[in-house]
C-alpha cells in the first residue's frame, strides 16, 4: 500500500487540450527572466532538457534547426533546463549555441506542474496557451514528425 501511495502521489500529466501553466523563471545564464505569457499569440514549443540526458542533447540541434526555418513572429521555442548544477548545461550551450531562451529550474517545480513523465518531454502550445501536442523522448527521425506537427498548428 505504501508503494502504491508512492506511485500515485505524482501529479497527473498534462496533455493535449490542457491549458499550459504560466511560469516565470530565471534564464540559465542568470541574466534575465523567461515568462511563458510573453509569447502568447505565438505557437510555442516548450522543451524540458538537462545536460545529463543524452536524447535531450540530441534534440537541441534539431530544435534549433526547426526554429531557424520557421517565422519568428509566429513561432517561438522556449526551453527549461533542469540541471541541479548549471555548469555542464552552460558548457553544452557554448558548443551548441541556441537562438531561443532557456530558463533554469534546478528544483524541478515546472516539470512537477506539467507532470513530466520522461526526459526529454516537449509541449507544443497554441497561440491561446493550450497544449496541442506532447512529444515524450527524442529519437532519430523525430525531427520530421515535430516539423509536421508544428507546421500543422501554424497553418490553423
Amino acid at each position, binding site marked *: 500500500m505504501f508503494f502504491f501511495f*508512492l506511485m500515485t*502521489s505524482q501529479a497527473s500529466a498534462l496533455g493535449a487540450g490542457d491549458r499550459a501553466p504560466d511560469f516565470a523563471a530565471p534564464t540559465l545564464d542568470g541574466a534575465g527572466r523567461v515568462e511563458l505569457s510573453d509569447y502568447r499569440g505565438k505557437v510555442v514549443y516548450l522543451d*524540458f532538457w538537462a545536460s*545529463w540526458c543524452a536524447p535531450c542533447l540530441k534534440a537541441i540541434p534539431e530544435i534549433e534547426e526547426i526554429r531557424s526555418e520557421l517565422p519568428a513572429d509566429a513561432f517561438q521555442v522556449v526551453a527549461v533546463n533542469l*540541471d541541479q548544477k548549471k555548469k555542464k548545461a552552460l558548457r553544452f550551450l557554448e558548443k551548441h549555441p541556441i537562438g531561443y531562451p532557456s530558463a533554469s529550474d534546478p528544483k*524541478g517545480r515546472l516539470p512537477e506542474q506539467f507532470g*513530466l513523465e520522461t526526459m526529454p518531454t516537449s509541449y507544443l502550445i497554441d497561440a491561446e496557451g493550450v497544449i496541442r501536442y506532447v512529444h515524450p523522448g527524442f529519437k532519430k527521425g523525430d525531427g520530421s514528425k515535430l516539423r509536421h506537427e508544428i507546421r500543422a498548428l501554424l497553418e490553423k
Partner: protein
Amino acid sequence: MRRILTIAAAAAILITLGGCTVVKPWERDLLARRDMAFESDTLEAAREAHIYFSKEASMPGGSGGGGGCGCN
C-alpha cells in the same frame, strides 16, 4: 516479550520505509552519472554475461533453459 519484538520490528520497517521514494524523471542527474551505473563497462558486462550463460547452459542470459554452446 514477543509483543515488544513485533512492535520494534514494525517500527523499524516503518522508519526504513520513510527512506523510500520515487525518483522523478528530472531528478536523475546523479543517477545518470557513469560512475553510478551497475556496470562500469557495458561491453565487458555483455562479454561476461555471454561467458556465464554459455558455461551455465542457460539461454537467454542468466535465465531459461537450453543453449550451452556459446554460439547464440
